[in-house]
């Protein structure tokens, strides 16, 4: 836990992840000399080179937002940010970064016990005792084009049409061949009696109404 005295507004404890591939958020609350408190934190975003799609993972485009837009701040090159003059109470910090999904963070600023840090991810209610925010996920805004495959052709309406035609052309005669000639004749007889079967009779809804 971070602790600091009223006169010295300095971040005492910072947990910096050694692993660069993780996004970490380190939080510390220190009191200012005025009536407000200061929330210090850190956002870490994986290096841009690791990303395949040229998403703008630039740290300069990340915004940190307190209480739904009441205060907005930006990140320093090392990922640190701070909010000054924050009143005691429970606050909400959101990180807006194109290409990443950040969970909002609930931050309790205690008036009675200055320096007491309580932060939790609101998405999964995980407390940030170690000031570490696991990356929730990266956001991919575009559908990825499926590489060409036979299935995609077959599944397209045209493919289905061709497939159906093939079935009719090659499979139906086979079915007819395997039929008993006796039965066949009876079926033809029946057909002549009934007339041509209409498509409506074959539909499931219409069949029920009959």
């Amino acid at each position, binding site marked *: 836990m971070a602790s600091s005295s009223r006169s010295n507004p300095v971040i005492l404890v910072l947990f910096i992840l050694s692993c660069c591939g993780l996004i970490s958020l380190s939080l510390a609350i220190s009191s200012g000399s*005025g009536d407000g408190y200061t929330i210090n934190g850190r956002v870490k975003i994986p290096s841009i080179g690791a990303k395949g799609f040229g998403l703008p993972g630039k740290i*300069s485009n990340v*915004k940190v937002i307190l209480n739904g837009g009441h205060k907005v701040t930006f990140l320093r090159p090392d990922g640190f940010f701070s909010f*000054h003059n924050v009143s005691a109470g*429970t606050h909400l910090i959101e990180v807006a970064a194109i290409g990443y999904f950040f*969970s909002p963070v609930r931050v309790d600023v205690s008036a009675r016990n200055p320096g007491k840090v309580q932060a939790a991810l609101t998405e999964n209610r995980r407390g940030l005792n170690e000031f570490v925010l696991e990356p929730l996920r990266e*956001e991919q805004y575009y559908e990825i084009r499926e590489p060409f495959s036979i299935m995609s052709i077959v599944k397209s309406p045209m493919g289905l*049409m061709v497939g*159906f035609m093939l079935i009719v052309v090659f499979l139906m005669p086979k079915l007819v061949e395997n039929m008993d000639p006796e039965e066949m004749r009876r079926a033809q007889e029946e057909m002549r009696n009934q007339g041509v079967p209409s498509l409506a009779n074959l539909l499931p809804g219409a069949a029920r109404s009959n």
Partner: protein
Amino acid sequence: MGMAIKDFLLLLVLFFSFTNPSFSLYEDQVGLTDWHQQYIGKVKQAVFHTQKTGRKRVVVSTEENVIASLDLRRGEIFWRHVFGSDDAIDGIDIALGKYVITLSSEGSVLRAWNLPDGQMVWESFLQGTKPSKSLLSVPTNLKVDKDNAIFVHGKGSLHAVSSIDGVILWKKDFAAKSVEVQQIIHPLGSDVIYAVGSDSSSQFGAYQINVKNGELLKHNAASFPGGFSRELLLISGDMLVALDAATGSSLVTINFQDEEISFQQTDISNLVGDFSGTAVLLPSKLPGMFSMKVDALVIFIRVTDEGNLEVVGKISDPAVVSDALLISEGQQAFALLEHGDGKIHLKVKPVNDWSSDLLKESIVMDRQRGIVHRIFINNYIRTDRSHGFRALIVMEDHSLLLLQQGEIVWSREDGLASIVDATTSELPVEKVGVSVAKVEENLFEWLKGHMLKLKGTLMLASPEDVAAIQGMRLKSSQKSKMTRDHNGFRKLLIVLTRAGKVFALHTGDGRVVWSLLLPLLRNSGPCENPTGLNTYQWRVPHHHAMDENPSFVIVGRCGQSSNAPGTLSFVDSYTGKEIKSLGLTHSVVQVIPLQITDSTDQRLHLVIDADQHAYLYPRTSDAISLLQREFSNIYWYSVDTDNGIIKGHALKSKCIQKDDEYCFSSRDIWSIVFPADSEKIIAAVRRKLNEVVHTQAKVTADQDVMYKHISKNLLFVATVAPKASGEIGTATPEESWLAVYLIDTITGRILHRMTHHGSQGPVRAVFSENWVVYHYFNLRAHRYEMSVIEIYDQSRADNKDVLKLVLGKHNLTSPISSYSRPEVVTKSQYYFFTHSVKAIAVTSTAKGITSKQLLIGTIGDQVLALDKRYLDPRRTVNPSPAEREEGIIPLTDSLPIIPQSYVTHALRVEGLRGIVTIPSKLESTALVFVYGVDLFYTQIAPSKTYDSLTDDFSYALLLITIVALIVAIFVTWVLSEKKELQDKWR
């Protein structure tokens, strides 16, 4: 055979049902139907950075709280940051030649940005106790402990801040002193800094401070009888000028660097002769002289070495003066800009010699840009070693232009960063005579294009082919034509900006078709501080669509207060010309577009003033007679958030006291008073008046019918506990609650009330059909929530009985009256939602058949499309198979955020303020326009484009299939012939 067809149909159904219902886009489809434009807003301050070779740039701060670095050659944005809404930028400068320094939030936040890429380098919070003028001073050559210091005055204290890392070097508090610091002065090369100011009681104070440690070296004070105005203008290192406070008719020069502070008073009338009105000092920094605006004249006054004032020149008023610019050793120049017959005249003069001009240019200026508001100049050395000047000017319509060598090098329409309201207009019908559809491509080209596309879909295309395909799709001339199309995708977006300018943007590519600076809404026009309020479609011709133009009306107000007189301007949508304008005698509080149009297709509008009188427009007798027919059916409501009262009104009779036959008095028919100590209105939302609902009935999976309660007269109101009306973090869950109401605005009946304990605002809501969705903050869970309320009409539920239907005992044909008391049932459910929300809208389509999507503008300035099915109160954890078949999604505690369903994909609409959806003629597709500091437009199909082929439909594949089928027919025919022949031979 039958089984086969059945299977086939089933296959088809399955195929379509597997497709993802959310909006999604491939990366190569970006820019096909959408466009994105980036703006910055009206420039407040500009700093040039042109010393180094390479990229020349200008750093600007704007009234939209944007700091941006612009390319000086083309006006493009290198980088840009949008600050929070209450983080207004007070000053910018460049330190060390590589950092941009910004001072914001009333002098309490100092930030440094890396000039090349806009990365924030450091941030300092400067504490102070009382509000004061914030000043930023970045001396170029001042070392404090080998560190370049920045001096900042804000919140009553003077700080010296290191420009390398933002550490506060020293701090001097002036809050205890009575004097309010107005200027900080650092004489070049000296070790002292002066802070000078005045207090309310004519006292003037000058503090001499050591720059190294902030030690107060000397404090002089003197009082001037009568006092002087707060604005102190620095003339030289030891002299200030101000207007006297008592009469405003004389100038006071203050000399403070001597042992004694001395005042010298000069009557303005002695300098310029008699004048009426008031004199205003212009804030331009010119050494040894100053400028003053008196009686439509700008007067330049020099201060002589003896301290006397002399007039050196006069120019006529709409004129602006730049700050002085050091052009060479000991020589400073400034620019002044005058207007005359459609041109602007730019002059650059040396400061010490009024009679000579370093530069004199005249440039033709578009009248629709209005007058020049600000000018910033910069110089460069021409190849012949003479001085060249470039001037950055900010116009009345907030646009930004760069002038160089007598030409406009580039211009930016930054007025579009502050859109107030938006509406749409149809484009002209394609006329037979003027065929725009010239032969666009011959058949061969067409086929070649489609073969390329086919190659693309089969992943056989080379990179050049891919580039060719992309280029072909983007430059498609179809989408930016100036005529109506069958699908209704091409329209004009009519937007009203804060500057009082109207733009028509083409939905195809977002270009400005025309723009108009409304004379009535100009500051230099007839009224003081006009504000534009709304735009409404005034006339949509149906009978004579070919030869009559549609028009719209812009409602404005002469002044800031709500009882200031209103203005109406009627503008032709096609030409962008003002048809007529009216300065009203009454105020405008509310405008009600009625569902009645007169014989010339003009829509009747009622304008309600502050006294709840209604005025009818257009002012014709035809309109009056049309209104009389509907007289008893016109109702409206008013929401008074300050007093917590909602009132319903109806028309009563003609105005008695006023001699105006188009004026009607109203009567209050109901009122709802919310208890002031427990409820405060924070949101009131109603349905969009032009929304189309396809059907009232909703068939559920168990063959049951539910009737939606569809009324245009429903109002959603949200109230919170007064203690919890502030931002998050100020109230505890115990003392906060949120109450929501559904109110019938005809009878004032509250149809539904619900309380969310431990919740607070802000509430963003959207009302459509029979449901309302709202977003608020749950303090107990400390998460945002979204709730849905659906309202159903129970009195029609009996109609389900077939027997009654047959016997004619149903009430389906009974007229619907808003006075009847329908038995309604409401269903509601709530879900967690991750982000803060800036705006919510719902897609609207032509017939209302297509399922709806919510468009949610998130705090990250993106727009998320969320299917309405996720906000369905009938969702359960384990829906039955029948319910699943109906499309009910199993209940989850939070709403999903699918990255592919961001309609803004990887773009940000910075400073997002509003989302507008417009139906197109194609039922499946809605047009979406999002505005803020940036603009974004796209087309979305909430249930996929089921009624048209997609853009990437492969005609070539279709052709190949057909050919293959024909070949197959012939082959099989030949084969069967052969077989038949063999059979016959046998």
